[in-house]
């Protein structure tokens, strides 16, 4: 079974006292890096609390003089995209409606397929698996038009269902890869024991494999969720008006070239739109790293 590598102690068993000065240096470097990594987030958060004039008068980087909480209200339900002045709220809902089902489907199907490929060898499995994982590398731009034609032919153009379908199928590349790499480490004897017990393909998956899969499912869920949530190209092309995902609304806000920039509202909208994925990383990040370890390095 893949072991949780990130959990306990580790590292060089350094002797604590003799390294005192170099430990100070380590903390210094780490702190500097952390500051650099946090900087963009901090800037956006600060700007989301500053009025536009304030930003224009100084720079993008600065402490808010008056907390402009209004930016959030405006971003959430105020600013206008075309005739609708509903902020990004409805678009958040759309994103959720696309992201949640697509994440669930691609994860579940990927888990079943990864399980089949890794634990139930069948003829040609390596080829199929190889091709599917190559999908990770196929550029998005190449797929836009073919998808258009496919969606037209199956009558799903301009529907959220179509987007869910696209993300499910494309997501399989990732989920199959990671699930397979994870399941490969599960002892085959478990499957054998279950077969002797009389369990079939699905019962083994459902009762034995799935309960063991939480580390990798967390990884795929996090990965799929953030990627689908952040996706923009398909979202804009294949949905219309009030059905568009939140990334489209963000672009509308930031790419409005014919307008004076509203950095404050824009920042607030960025924060709100990124909140779901940020929270997922905040709470799931530790499992993410653990599962990534189990699923990636093979």
């Amino acid at each position, binding site marked *: 079974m893949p072991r949780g590598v990130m959990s306990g102690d580790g590292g060089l068993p350094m002797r604590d006292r003799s390294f005192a000065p170099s430990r100070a240096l380590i903390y210094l470097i780490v702190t500097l890096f952390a500051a650099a990594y946090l900087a963009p987030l901090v800037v956006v958060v600060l700007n989301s609390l500053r009025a536009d004039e304030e930003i*224009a008068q100084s720079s993008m980087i600065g402490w808010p003089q008056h907390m402009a909480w209004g930016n959030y209200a405006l971003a959430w339900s105020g600013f*206008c*995209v*075309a*005739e609708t002045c509903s902020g990004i709220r409805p678009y958040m809902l759309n994103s959720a409606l696309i992201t949640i089902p697509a994440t669930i489907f691609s994860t579940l199907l990927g888990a079943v397929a990864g399980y089949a490929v890794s634990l139930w060898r069948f003829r040609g499995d390596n080829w199929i698996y190889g091709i599917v994982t190559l999908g990770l590398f196929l550029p998005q731009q190449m797929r*836009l*038009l073919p998808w*258009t*034609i496919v*969606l*037209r032919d199956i009558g799903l*153009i*301009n529907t959220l269902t179509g987007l869910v379908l696209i993300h499910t199928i494309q997501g399989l590349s990732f989920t199959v890869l990671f699930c397979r790499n994870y399941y490969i480490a599960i002892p085959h004897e478990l499957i054998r024991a279950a077969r002797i017990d009389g369990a079939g393909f699905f019962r083994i998956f459902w009762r034995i494999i799935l309960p063991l899969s939480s580390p990798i499912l967390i990884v795929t869920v996090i990965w799929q969720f953030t990627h689908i949530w952040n996706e923009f190209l398909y979202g*804009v*092309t*294949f949905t*219309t*008006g009030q059905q*568009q995902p939140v990334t*489209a*609304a963000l*672009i*509308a*806000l930031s*790419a*409005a*070239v*014919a*307008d*004076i*920039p509203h950095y404050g509202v824009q920042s607030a909208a960025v924060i709100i739109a990124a909140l779901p994925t940020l929270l997922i990383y905040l709470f799931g990040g530790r499992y993410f790293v653990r599962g990534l370890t189990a699923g990636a390095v093979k």
Partner: protein
Amino acid sequence: QGAVKPRLTAISQWSAGSDGAAITALGKKFEEKGGIWQHSPVPGFTTEMMNKLRAQIIAGDPPACSQLKGPEIAAWSKIAPTVDLDAVVAAAGYEKVVAPDLAKLHKPAGKWIALPLQIYSTNMLFLSKRGMDKAKADKPPVTWADFNELAEKMKSAGMAYPIANGGTRPDDGQKFEASFAGISPTAYRAALMNLDKKALEGPEIKAAFAQTRKIADWCDPNVGAQPYATNLKRFVDGDMGMLIMGGWAQGVLKNAGFKFDDYVIVPGPSDNRKPVFLLNADAFIFWQRKEADLQAGQMLMAQLVMDPAIQTMYSQITGSIPVRTDVDLSGEGWSDGQRRTAAALKDAVASNQAVLSLAHNMAQENGLTAAMIDVITEYVKNNKIKPEEAVSRLADAVESAR
């Protein structure tokens, strides 16, 4: 009206700012007339809008009408059937009041399939009142020499960057097309609209590149790829003095809370002292639909778009001028700038100095335009490229993109 309630599906790129406001107002009018207004603004860039249009056309589900302009109307009309608007245009007597060059673009095969909505000139010169005061200047420049002199004056008056333009691709294109058309509208027409090989390598185009370099040097290099709107506050405050831009900047200025008397708008510099008009017109193309309600909606939309009252309302929001040349701009709600633009158009048409904007995709199809803008923007951003080199690169780009 028939039994069906007119309905209109439309896609456009206008989602925010004064453009958004104007299209929204148009929608209100449409609904007042009993229609159902289904507008999908596509956020992002023109490309995204065209992707969407393409996707819908490929899917066999085009919108009843969509934003499209210039030669693209002709190109796109070949890939899907469009609506013949001749009857409704004739009924409105519209043809007489539209500039002929413009009309031609909207009836590529001889029939009206698209309707222009508003007109801009991309080479209007915005002068900051405070900037002018600072430079102790009171006369707007007429020729490029005047312009250059004024810019120098402003610079010595303490403005580090007298010109407030931005750094986007169309912005760079505008710097160049304004220079070129101002130097010689004839050469401009020959080179950029007709792609005449000799004109493409002529002395005028080289002079235009030289002038473009001057303008670029007066712009804030730090603007990067940001739009001119980033600079508007500095422009109004008099930290920057001039802006070469289309009339739409008025809408943006208004939206940002600035007043009409903060700045002056005059036609862009023209070395023969007669106004040069770089025509940029937004338009709607109408796609064939079988549904009765959509067809009714298309007719209603066409009537609205041609209606002087609607055009007035629309232009007053965005800062453009109406397509109809018979609209009276003397009334309330029109700015001096708009009046001057309208007058410039009239003069330019009269002296055959109204040309189509390259930067805003009016002169050539997108592919060719983009190839030319590549050369121009690289030239603007790289002062090591000499004008003669730029000329030959532009000619090469035209050659390979054709």
